[in-house]
């Protein structure tokens, strides 16, 4: 059992992702939650790079950390929510929520740890299916119809956001 640099990077990124996700859930201040979630997204992008999926890594950083999270920050700051005003929920409800999530995790792990694909290996740091050349060719030949439909989805989302957000 020799430890390679990829193993070290994998465990480091996983610990960063889980720690930032936990801090995101437990932070009282919503602005800190957004920043921790951005840290989680960067760790997940690191995982994508480790899996040689460079296109998705860059898109994850641009779309999630760049666009979506900035939108969240704008909304939080425009609504002046960046103070710790969240009323405390009943402590038992919090314990029950954590217990329910923990039970779900336990059951999923127990069910999947003997799965048939257990022996399989996700090839790290090799293969070119995640490069933009291959993905672009696939996206504009086989998946060109869903790609065009997604532009209609964006148009309807834009119209919906304007209509909902408009003052009466």
């Amino acid at each position, binding site marked *: 059992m020799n430890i390679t640099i990829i193993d070290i990077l994998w465990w480091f990124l996983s610990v960063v992702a889980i720690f930032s996700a936990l801090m995101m859930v437990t932070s009282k201040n919503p602005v800190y939650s957004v920043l921790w979630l951005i840290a989680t997204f960067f760790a997940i992008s690191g995982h994508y790079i480790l899996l040689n999926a460079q296109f998705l890594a860059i898109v994850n950083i641009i779309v*999630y950390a760049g666009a979506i999270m900035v939108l969240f920050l704008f909304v939080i700051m425009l609504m002046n929510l960046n103070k710790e005003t969240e009323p405390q929920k009943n402590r038992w409800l919090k314990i029950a*929520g954590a217990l329910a999530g923990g039970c779900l995790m336990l059951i999923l*792990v127990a069910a999947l740890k003997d799965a048939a694909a257990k022996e399989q290996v996700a090839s790290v740091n090799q*293969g070119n299916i995640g490069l933009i050349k291959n*993905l672009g060719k*696939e996206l504009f030949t086989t998946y060109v119809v869903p790609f065009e439909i997604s532009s209609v989805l964006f148009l309807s989302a834009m119209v919906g956001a304007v209509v909902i957000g408009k003052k009466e």
Partner: protein
Amino acid sequence: MPILNYIILSIALFSIGIVGVLTRRNAIIIFMCIELMLNAVNLLLVAFSKMHMNTAFKAGDLAGTAGTDGQIFVFFIMVVAAAEVSVGLAIIVMMYRNIHSVDVNFLNRLKQ
């Protein structure tokens, strides 16, 4: 890297998102937890696509384009998530304008 490691990592991130949805009351943070769950699923899809590529490569597919579909799916999930966030944040802003709070407990009766 064994696929089981990726499965357990994704389950952990997904469960943290579930716990966040169940325990927080701020609508924006609940929305962020949903984004976290989507990302956990995306990570698992990419890992499975690389696993599929690996098995196809061992079986003799030397061109090595098996598993591209999984990454295209992740791309479309990101597209849908971006559209969802724009509409969802508009709804939250509307809710803040009406009841001056983003606490979901005030929404137990939607028609006030």
